[in-house]
């Protein structure tokens, strides 16, 4: 097996790793680094459960090979602070049911709000449209993202 040496920053921590060249990013995260908050849904880039932020953009970590993450900064759900506004808004709005899509949804929301603190409802729906959810019907997730945006802008979220 050919190993590739990569340097990657995950959730603020620097790693220097030897990875197999066919290793997927999701397997590096879950199996090698035990960051199991990232979920594997379909394994073919359709459901978004494995969403992580790489170089400021959301990617499906099932479609990225680990060596492609060389020299990049990655944020997984474990990198979201305990008292994070988006996370708390999800809880307060009841935006979590079974929870399997939640890590990806939170990161898709973060990626949107990092660039746009005043998104329209359409922009929020577009931003999470790569993340499938079978339980919530999306509406409470949309409300949570709206609330988080408002809180981040300095409002009271109501």
């Amino acid at each position: 097996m050919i190993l590739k040496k990569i340097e990657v920053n995950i959730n603020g921590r620097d790693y220097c790793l030897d990875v197999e060249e066919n290793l997927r990013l999701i397997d590096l995260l879950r199996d090698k680094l035990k960051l199991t908050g990232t979920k594997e849904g379909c394994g073919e880039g359709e459901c978004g459960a494995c969403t992580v932020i790489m170089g400021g953009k959301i990617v499906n970590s099932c479609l990225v090979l680990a060596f492609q993450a060389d020299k990049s900064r990655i944020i997984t759900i474990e990198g979201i602070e305990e008292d994070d506004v988006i996370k708390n808004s999800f809880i307060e709005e009841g935006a979590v049911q079974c929870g399997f899509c939640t890590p990806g949804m939170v990161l898709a929301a973060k990626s949107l709000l990092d660039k746009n603190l005043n998104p329209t409802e359409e922009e929020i729906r577009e931003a999470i449209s790569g993340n499938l959810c079978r339980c919530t019907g999306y509406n409470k997730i949309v409300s949570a993202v709206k609330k988080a945006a408002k809180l981040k802008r300095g409002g009271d979220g109501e």
Partner: protein
Amino acid sequence: MKKRGKGIACIFYGTGYGNGFPDVSRAYARLLEDGRVEISVGATEVGQGAKTVMVQIAAETLGLLDKDIVLINEDTSKTPDAGTAAASRQTYNTGNAVKIACENLKEKILEDAAKLLGVNTKVGLCMKDGLIYVKSYPSKKVSLKEIAELNKDLQAEGVFTAHTTQMDENGQGAPYWPYTFASCAVEVEVDTETGEVSILRAKHVLDVGRAVNPSLVEGQIDGGFAMGVGYALMEDIGLKDGKMTNGSFEKYIIPTALDIPEIEKVLIEYPEDTAPYGAKGIGEPVMIPVAPAILNAIYDAIGVRFYEIPVTPERVLLALQSKG
């Protein structure tokens, strides 16, 4: 051209296994040494909120706060059988079992309290916020913690069996109890060039008996509505010679956030006599009227009745062509 139409559908749905199938839930309640109460129940949490609802029902029955209930669930070495999280039956069936277990435990606690307080009967006692006191003389009281210290064996079981009878050979009878009612209205827009159907607005009215947790009920309506949209317009496993041809999300299309409108929700609270605090099952009933409401709205928009779902863009275009 884009054409708009409105549609409505109303349904009733019997919750529980039905048709004479044994439908039993069990729960245990136990007073812990620190005065909190442990509820053991086998109700599976799949995101619908069973854990929350069971805690709320126990807290309400025992006059405690949610934080004073210790819930043990989904542990087959400790919890009694509460049946499946299916048939929209957990809030009604298992909620009843939890309520009965808590009522039975409360009776035992009150018997101990009556002895400790030196009153002749438990009739005049109140139990609230972890204290048992004489109604007419509230300073005469004892705490659950004090009772637990003296009697380490305060526990009770609750068993609830839902009414169900098998239908006769003509399909007549009373297979279910209770029934949940729902009504859904939608406005759609049909693009006659692409065949696409979008849902512009929706309203869902649900007879819940009693909303133990309104936010959870809203979440179930949102989720059920989205499933109904997928069922009506997108989802097709494409069965061919016994095999699925649409076996991935690339071909088996389910709604995304862009396909779902905001839903105006109305909860009708008309308590069901046999239910815990009046609460009926609502999980499946929310979805059932969605597809017929959408198909009625499509008919209103383009004058075509569809008898096959999903109503995909291809089917809309073919129907419009043959209509001429």
